[in-house]
């Protein structure tokens, strides 16, 4: 059953009288609880797709349907975890989450319930110990955790992750990927994640949407990753399904749709 439907979206930007088509005819259907990754070379418009789903950009053609209703402006039902965390530096970790909770849950929950909900979400990402610290006082990985907690606390129908771990070192990234898998297993949100990391895409996703190069980028191929959950990265290293999926994505990215600039 389709939960979120991206239907034939395209977008063009006009600058100095020249129109540049960035996306053409991008269609993806996502089921409830499904984890979908968007992968492609940089500049192919992955982030643009995500921003259109988030409502931060307006598509020139096509539409995004969430539970069969068109969405074209931003809202907490499609919470975004931004690549550079986007925490407000003048607020503590807790205040950053409570800004979202107090805004989104006002009227639905009492003050006490909201406080409990904030604590619950901080605990979910293991950030309770640093709740009173400011973003400048915590590490990059911790900031990204808080960003995830803030997004999850809005109880979004779809969680949008824009290269959430791109700026982190490999060890921290692996750790956060495990946390994300565990949280996704527990909450079952639909997730769209942008990544340029093949292993990350295969490890986390139910399906991987591979995008062709721009201009006029579109969906090149969709790969289903048939791996049991919960997944454990160590066991997967030797798993034939995993290695096959990995090879498929690599083949798409570097053989069939190699970036011209890199190929040259």
């Amino acid at each position, binding site marked *: 059953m389709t939960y979120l439907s991206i239907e034939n979206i395209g977008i063009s930007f006009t600058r100095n009288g020249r129109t540049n088509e960035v996306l053409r005819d991008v269609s993806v259907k996502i089921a409830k609880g499904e984890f979908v990754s968007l992968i492609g070379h940089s500049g192919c418009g992955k982030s643009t797709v995500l921003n259109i789903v*988030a*409502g*931060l950009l307006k598509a020139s053609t096509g539409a995004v349907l969430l539970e069969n209703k068109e969405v074209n402006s*931003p*809202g*907490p039902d*499609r*919470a*975004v975890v*931004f690549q*550079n965390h*986007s925490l*407000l*530096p*003048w*607020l503590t970790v807790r205040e950053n989450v409570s*800004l*979202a909770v107090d*805004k*989104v849950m006002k009227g639905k929950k009492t003050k006490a319930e909201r406080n409990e909900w904030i604590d619950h979400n901080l605990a979910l990402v*293991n950030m309770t*110990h640093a709740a009173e610290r*400011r973003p400048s006082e915590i*590490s990059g990985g*911790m900031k990204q955790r808080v960003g995830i907690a803030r997004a999850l606390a*809005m109880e979004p129908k779809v969680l949008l992750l824009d290269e959430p771990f791109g700026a982190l070192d490999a060890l921290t990234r692996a*750790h956060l990927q495990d946390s994300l898998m565990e949280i996704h297993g527990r909450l079952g949100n639909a997730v769209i994640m942008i990544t340029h990391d093949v292993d990350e895409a295969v490890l986390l996703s139910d399906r991987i949407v591979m995008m062709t190069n721009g201009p006029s980028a579109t969906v090149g191929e969709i790969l289903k990753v048939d791996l049991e959950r919960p997944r454990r990265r160590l066991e997967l290293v030797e798993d034939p399904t995993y290695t096959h999926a990995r090879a498929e994505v690599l083949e798409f990215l570097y053989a069939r749709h190699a970036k011209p600039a890199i190929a040259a």
Partner: protein
Amino acid sequence: MANTSSLGVTGPAVVKAASAPKHRAPLVTMATIRQIAANLIPPVVVMLAFLVIWELLCSRPGAGLPPPSRVVTEAWDIIAHPFYDNGGTDKGLFWHIAASIQRVAFGFALATVVGILVGTLIGQSDWAMRGLDPIFQVLRTIPPLAWLPLSLAAFRDGQPSAIFVIFITSIWPIIINTAVGIRNIPQDYRNVSAVLQLNPIEFFTKIMLPSAAPYIFTGLRIGVGLSWLAIVAAEMLIGGVGIGFFIWDAWNSSHISEIIVALVYVGIIGFILDRFVAFIGNLVTRGAAA
């Protein structure tokens, strides 16, 4: 995870730090004294050297200005009795300075409110920016005192005219810095607010003001400095109680020593005002402002 590992590192370090002062407590005190002395000695030495040179230069017969020793003896009355009040403009220095600070407070507070609102407007709207910027660029170069005759004509009274001069002097840096601060709000913060569907008032108070606060306080510091510069000059012209009038009055009665004492006060108060705004800025932005 990070918590336990950091505990493991800080554990022994804390023990070391705690045991150190037990054995060598006097050494720490010496170091502290040396630290204070290192900061205190240079300004004291320079100050003394300055006073000695001044004394030597102005002690010769026929010198135009009094040496510091004569300044103190001649102006001892106003140094020792800052609080006397004989009615009219015959008051102690404290009352003159209080009157000046009050004018600055009114004018500057007004400029702060209007400046931040107008700055936000031209920071947010390209249309307002294009429309108002040329006017502001011309208006802000007008020297403060040039506004005084106009405001006297409009208000027909010294007090509101002086306040207006303060207002019009200090508002430009506040407007311009606020606008730059608003323009520099990262797109990420705007996206966050869009996803949360903050209304314009929530966006203004929760995102714009805190994000632009370091810029706004830079503007406020420049503004308060300019208003203190302007008030002395304005008061010389409008009369009444105020440090500017006090200086002008002392000049007319040839009390050069009193002028010098008043200048010292003006300098110190200007310094305190600047530090006060910087202190509030630090408090509000939690150290993010310079």
